């Protein structure tokens, strides 16, 4: 029996009433108008991401991010109607269904609490499940949170479990994705150095983000290019770190946004798409689920020229080459031209489409939280609260996540202005 999962018996669950908020009515909203309720991000919180947070339990880790999100929104636990939490596979910490014991740490007692899982994209899909609860007027204010404490396990082990009757071949996520990177390079005739440009850019951006895990002050492009080749064509410095961290957001409705002290980010579109990991005709370089998902988000947001109309992108890039690959998949570059866009400097912090101003997954990877960090960083950009990695004048930003064997996609587009319809 594990110490953290021993039920504490009476008193824990016995009909306790929900904590009182500011006296306003919680729960379902009756008699609301037609159409979807606009969804606003009014609070963002994250932990300082590091390789091992040995000073806190999982409860303490998620609590830290949640508290910061509430502080940003200037709300209390009682103001929250529901909690939606996500993380990557339970194997990663070996706590089966950790949400069961996190209810008190997240103020969820007496409220609905949902857990979402879609592998590495989970942080994004968790935020979308939370947003949909508001858009559907099921709840008014929802705390959403995602986390991973990678130091408690070994994700590479968790992703390479030997299965009977199968040949043990696979060496972690890098080994899985590296052949797709090679296929991209072949298909587009991209020169070898593009991946290093992305890794160098994202690590430089991370120096401007106090929460980022990797702060490699002395990194040079040459060091990236000469770092050890792990899964040829992917080098060590082109891979994401293994991080402990959590990210939380407070989402609310129009009335909640009207009361909030700091500028909100408004959701203009959100979508998820799935496809099998392997099937005949799958385009692993540019999965159809990804491009369909982006197209749906742009349609909802009324975006017809993503490159021109979007000011910043937080994209899920765990291996450097995925930046040019996703630039094409998400419609920012013509097919085969993602790498030229990266090479031109367009995706740098001062370029015309900054990608991963926060430093991205390449600088911070608490797997379950990584997708939500993309969504939250996009929100920070359009709220004007991104600090030193703020993209000047950002009005519209895309948050993107993918997971599994490039089989789950989730994205949202947030803006400084509320939706008009």
């Amino acid at each position: 029996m594990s110490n953290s999962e021993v039920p504490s018996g009476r008193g824990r669950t016995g009909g306790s009433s929900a904590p009182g908020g500011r006296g306003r009515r919680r729960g379902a909203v009756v008699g609301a108008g037609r159409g979807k309720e606009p969804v606003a991000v009014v609070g963002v919180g994250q932990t300082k991401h590091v390789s091992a947070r040995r000073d806190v339990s999982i409860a303490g880790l998620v609590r830290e991010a949640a508290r910061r999100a509430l502080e940003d929104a200037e709300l209390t636990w009682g103001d929250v109607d529901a909690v939606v939490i996500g993380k990557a596979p339970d194997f990663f910490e070996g706590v089966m269904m950790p949400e069961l014991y996190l209810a008190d740490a997240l103020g969820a007692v007496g409220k609905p609490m949902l857990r979402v899982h879609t592998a590495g994209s989970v942080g994004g899909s968790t935020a979308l499940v939370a947003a949909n609860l508001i858009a559907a007027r099921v709840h008014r204010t929802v705390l959403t949170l995602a986390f991973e404490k990678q130091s408690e396990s070994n994700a590479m082990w968790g992703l390479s479990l030997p299965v009977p009757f199968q040949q043990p071949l696979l060496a972690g996520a890098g080994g899985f994705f590296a052949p797709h990177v090679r296929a991209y390079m072949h298909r587009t005739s991209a020169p070898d150095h593009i991946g290093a440009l992305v890794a160098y850019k994202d690590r430089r951006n991370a120096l401007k983000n106090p929460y980022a895990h990797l702060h490699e002050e002395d990194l040079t492009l040459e060091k990236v290019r000469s770092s050890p080749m792990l899964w040829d064509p992917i080098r060590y410095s082109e891979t994401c770190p293994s991080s402990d961290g959590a990210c939380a957001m407070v989402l609310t409705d129009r009335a909640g946004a009207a009361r909030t002290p700091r500028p909100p980010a408004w959701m203009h579109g959100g979508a998820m798409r799935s496809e099998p990991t392997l099937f005949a005709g799958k385009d692993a370089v540019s999965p159809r689920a990804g491009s369909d998902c982006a197209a749906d988000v742009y349609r909802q947001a009324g975006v017809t020229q993503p490159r021109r109309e979007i000011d910043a992108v937080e994209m899920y890039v765990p291996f450097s080459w995925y930046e040019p690959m996703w630039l094409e998949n998400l419609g920012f570059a013509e097919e085969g031209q993602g790498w030229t866009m990266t090479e031109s400097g367009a995706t740098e912090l001062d370029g015309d489409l900054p990608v991963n101003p926060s430093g991205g997954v390449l600088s911070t990877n608490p797997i379950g939280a990584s997708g939500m960090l993309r969504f939250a960083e996009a929100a920070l950009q359009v709220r004007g609260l991104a600090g030193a990695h703020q993209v000047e004048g950002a009005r519209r930003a895309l948050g993107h996540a993918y997971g599994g064997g490039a089989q789950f996609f989730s994205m949202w587009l947030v803006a400084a202005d509320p939706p008009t319809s």
Partner: protein
Amino acid sequence: MDDVLTAPMVVEFPFTRSLGPVLSAFLTGLRERTVLGVTATDGRVVVPPTEYDPVTAEEVRDLVEVGQTGTVTTWAWNGAPRRGQPLAHPFAWVLVRLDGADTALLHALDAPEGPGSVSTGMRVRVRWAQERTGAITDIACFEPAPHDPPPPGRPAAHPGTFPEPVTGIVAAARLDYTYSPGRAQTRYLNALAEHRTKGERCPRCRKVYVPPRGACPTCGVATGEQVEVGPAGTVTTFCVVNIKAKGLDIDVPYVYGHIALDGAGLALHGRIAGIPCDQVRMGLRVEPVWTEGGRHPDHYRPTGEPDAAYETYKELL
């Protein structure tokens, strides 16, 4: 129906747990034969302690020391203990409200006289483990105690500080499964035993799945028609693995390739050898190399044919 293959599958890992301040005090306390609880906002004493108030969600840190005798609030008899459970012989799972606590702790009760000797309301006391490390198992179990009433008064405050506190534990998790790959893969594996590779064709899109899964994931229909593919194929893409994965017994570097066997509708994954790593290329023609007793080809080696044109395999990456 074919006989379906099955095999044991064990997943085990020594997960670590960082405890944080409250659970660190609780487990270190157990090592020192001291049971700590935490006072919640409403004054109730919660044992084992939580870090956050179960009602208000506020951070709670006021520790108290509770008694080592308590009252059973409910129980269940475990007549057939499994590996890893607190006692090897039949025992009762009990919820024990320790004297001074307002909540109950789950543990084992050693009741050698059987389930007839266990009752709700019975008094029990901690039996400490001989060797204690700072874990819930430092309480070996509970044992029946004389039926004295709980002592009056509230538990005393405790600073929760001890020399050399326990800050983390190792939770060795182990899951035992019986794994079956299912009927379609059983047919595939049985054919491999004869060094033949059999896929299954989708009746709708006509693509041949290798290995087969019994259904086409695109069309959502069963695949029944068996089709022999290969033996040769084309390397459609690959990587060179230079890093050893935990538990994977392959010397690095090795080439992990996607191989489209002739006639297959998608690539399978395999190791490519018999050629220096830096000479492997997309389009390379390869064939399986079998070893005695191996269930799968050990690896794929070049056939010596000219490379396949990209156009012939670009949909099979």
